[in-house]
């Protein structure tokens, strides 16, 4: 198929960017979206134009490195990561707009690459269980009810891609924070630090410039790992409990 691509180009963080139009031919429906961009980049390189910068690594939908706004939707039309989106979701003659994640907490560094360091900084504020290597008790000493383990896993499946933030009109990262709060809060090992964790992570969330949650639900709709919206309810519940405990 033949496509028209409108792509955001931006030299670096300090420069102003703009959309540019490219034509691409002979796109096969077996290509992944990023392979289609690879082909475009080969074409640009042979014409002497600088290839378009975009992030990806595993290309298996698990590392969370990729992420593009495709026709205004985070990761495009399917519920999956950009790297797992295939061209059979498009048709001959389509015009596709491709932009980087847009959020004030994710500054653009070049073309389609953004800085998501803010997500790591939230984890640094308590998104862990404090246990030094070698000091762990025998794994079977604390059974975990299966439904808790399953809910913890579902929340822990977050790949930290940032699609939730990009999709949210408020630029909120509450789905991301809620997922971590739920993952660790469902497990007995996560209890001792539960109150402090939610207070500190939420403080960092606000400090980074992420917006508040107004229950729109675009985050969970865009999430390639289908993290459920109830992790945000859990976040609010844990926060209320922590505040009641005087934190």
């Amino acid at each position, binding site marked *: 198929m033949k496509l028209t691509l409108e792509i955001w180009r931006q030299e670096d963080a300090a420069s102003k960017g703009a959309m540019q139009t490219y034509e691409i031919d002979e796109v096969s429906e077996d290509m992944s979206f990023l392979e289609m961009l690879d082909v475009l980049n080969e074409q640009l390189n042979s014409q002497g134009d600088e290839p378009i910068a975009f992030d990806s690594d595993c290309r298996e939908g698990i*590392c969370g490195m990729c992420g593009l706004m495709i026709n205004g939707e985070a990761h495009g039309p399917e519920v999956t990561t950009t790297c*797992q989106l295939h061209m059979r979701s498009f048709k001959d003659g389509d015009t596709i707009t491709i932009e980087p994640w847009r959020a004030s907490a994710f500054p653009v560094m070049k073309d389609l690459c953004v800085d998501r360091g803010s997500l790591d900084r939230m984890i640094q504020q308590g998104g862990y269980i404090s246990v030094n290597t070698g000091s762990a008790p025998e794994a079977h000493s604390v059974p975990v009810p299966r439904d808790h383990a399953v809910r913890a896993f579902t929340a*822990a499946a977050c790949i930290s891609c940032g699609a939730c933030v990009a999709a949210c009109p408020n630029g909120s990262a509450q789905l991301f924070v809620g997922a971590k709060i739920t993952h660790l809060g469902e497990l007995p090992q996560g209890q001792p630090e539960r109150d402090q964790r939610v207070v500190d992570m939420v403080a960092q969330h606000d400090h980074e410039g992420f917006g508040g949650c107004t229950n729109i639900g675009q985050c969970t709709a865009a999430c390639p790992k289908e993290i459920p919206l109830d992790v945000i309810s859990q976040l609010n519940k844990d926060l209320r409990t922590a505040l009641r405990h005087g934190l």
Partner: protein
Amino acid sequence: MTDMPDTTLTSHPSHDAPADGSDDAMGYYTPGEPLVDRKAPDGPIDERWNTRKFEARLVNPANRRKLSVIIVGTGLAGGSAAATLGEAGYRVKSFCYQDSPRRAHSVAAQGGINAAKNYKEDGDSVHRLFFDTVKGGDYRSRESNVYRLAEVSTSIIDQCVAQGVPFAREYGGLLDNRSFGGVQVSRTFYARGQTGQQLLIGAYQAMERQVHAGTVEEFTRHEMLELVVVDGRARGIIARNMVTGSVETHLADVVVIASGGYGNVFYLSTNAMGSNTTATWRAYRKGAYMANPCYTQIHPTCIPVSGSHQSKLTLMSESLRNDGRIWVPKNQADCTKDPRDIAEKDRDYYLERIYPAFGNLVPRDIASRAAKYVCDEGRGVGPEVEGARRGVYLDFADAMDRLGEPAIREKYGNLFDMYARITGENPYDVPMRIYPAVHYVMGGLWVDYDLQSTIPGLFVTGEANFSDHGANRLGASALMQGLADGYFVLPHTIRDYLSDGPFEVVPEDHPAVVESLAAVEERIRHFMTAKGTRSVDSYHRELGNIMWEYCGMERSEDGLKKAIDLIRTLKDDFYRNVRVLGHDQSLNQSLEKAGRVADFIELGELMCIDALNRRESCGGHFRTESSTEDGEALRHDDLYAYVAAWEFTGDEEPPVLHKEDLVYTAIEMKQRSYK
């Protein structure tokens, strides 16, 4: 000096070139002195690690914050080490090329992690895990290292559970296990199909906790491009900030490389796009020996290539072979037919036919090679790519009749969905198509029992080293090794080295630093000014084709020699004709790739020389000149029971081969048979 890796030289006449002239690599290398690991204590195998931990000197807690450690890599091996050394109080600088440590390629591991917990009371033990791993490695790994790995495996599970890793559990709340990779006990712990992700998040969170505590400093989007060696010791790295393009010097008392595997030398593999050999290759060029570089694992169940645009390959869990039946048409003429229209009598279930005892569950290398043969015969299925059909059917129709579709959906639903997304075909209706792909490398930098390379002060962990998997890796053992190295081994052995520190401060204008920095800048300048016509990717793809054709599943003397010639020509052309656009002082992905491909090209040549030297079939490595009468792999323990450790001696000089004899005291060497 006590901290030097012990490479004491002894004489081993048995490793002279065999009288029949079977050392095919003669002329491509210079024979060197044998290599011996003397860090593993003598004595019974089950006491060696305790002895070593006791003998390794301690570092006073107050001194630890004066000691600095650079760790390149944040996968299971590097992330766990950064967390643990940070907790101990050392000053750690951690590097990765992704934008977050949590994206290291360990994240992609699906199947699980082994540990000798024996929770199922099915006869598992440390000794059995040790035995299975050495046997699985086809008797080409170092027994002391493997025993230790099995020993510490149980602590890994305890640690991960305490960190909140949500392993699969039974209804009673206890951990579930499954049997994996053809072993007879259930010792594999898993978290759905995302075990690597969950383990990595555990290590990442432990590391982020140390970032918060101020012991670990994190450098993301930084790529190590050179190792700094001062007065014979590893003292730092040169890294490029991939956002600003600035080339930075980072110095420390000790350097750890945990940069993962180099499977991308084949261009197409199940590795991440950025997986590279640059960190290990640069260390090799600075004097660290590279061991068994040709040992590659090829995984039989990957989704076939769909066209020349293909950028990477996707693994599908091996567990599919438990219920799926592998076949191709008996007649070439049927290869383009709808598989559902091919009559039972016209199908060749070739694994069941050739290996009736194991059938579709034969080990990875055998299943992979058999698929190659039937496709070479022209009986492959699926789309024609570059003149050939490379795919075989993995058919669930029988299993679906036997167990019902819901049961199959329950077991493999996520894999079937993934397959459908990538291929656009519904595997509940049409048989899946699979083909082998490069998945893992057992080769890597040579390390002693302490995980120290031949450069004092350079430690190597995880897939980047060579030590634990011999010529073939058993399923679910790489995750185990990465975490064993980082949480439980390195922290003990590195303290012995660091107890001599802090070492003399290296000034940034030290000639060795200046020279390393200049070399990196010169390489970048070369790529930016080469003004050629071909893209980096086109060279990478060409290299991959050469490697896959001649140094892939099956290797021969003629093929390998041809490959070496082709690679040398390619290298010449690459330096003259590559085109890298954009600027070096900014984010530039073509420039990043150019550096990686340059190193892959050199590595590819060494892999071929290594494969040429080893005229035996062992593990995942098949030499056509070494097979039994019925075409099965034939090992030669009399000639090749050694680790081949290669020393770099200059661009124009052949590498020097040092052999480390493999001696087994706790296990007897046996030839595999799956017939």
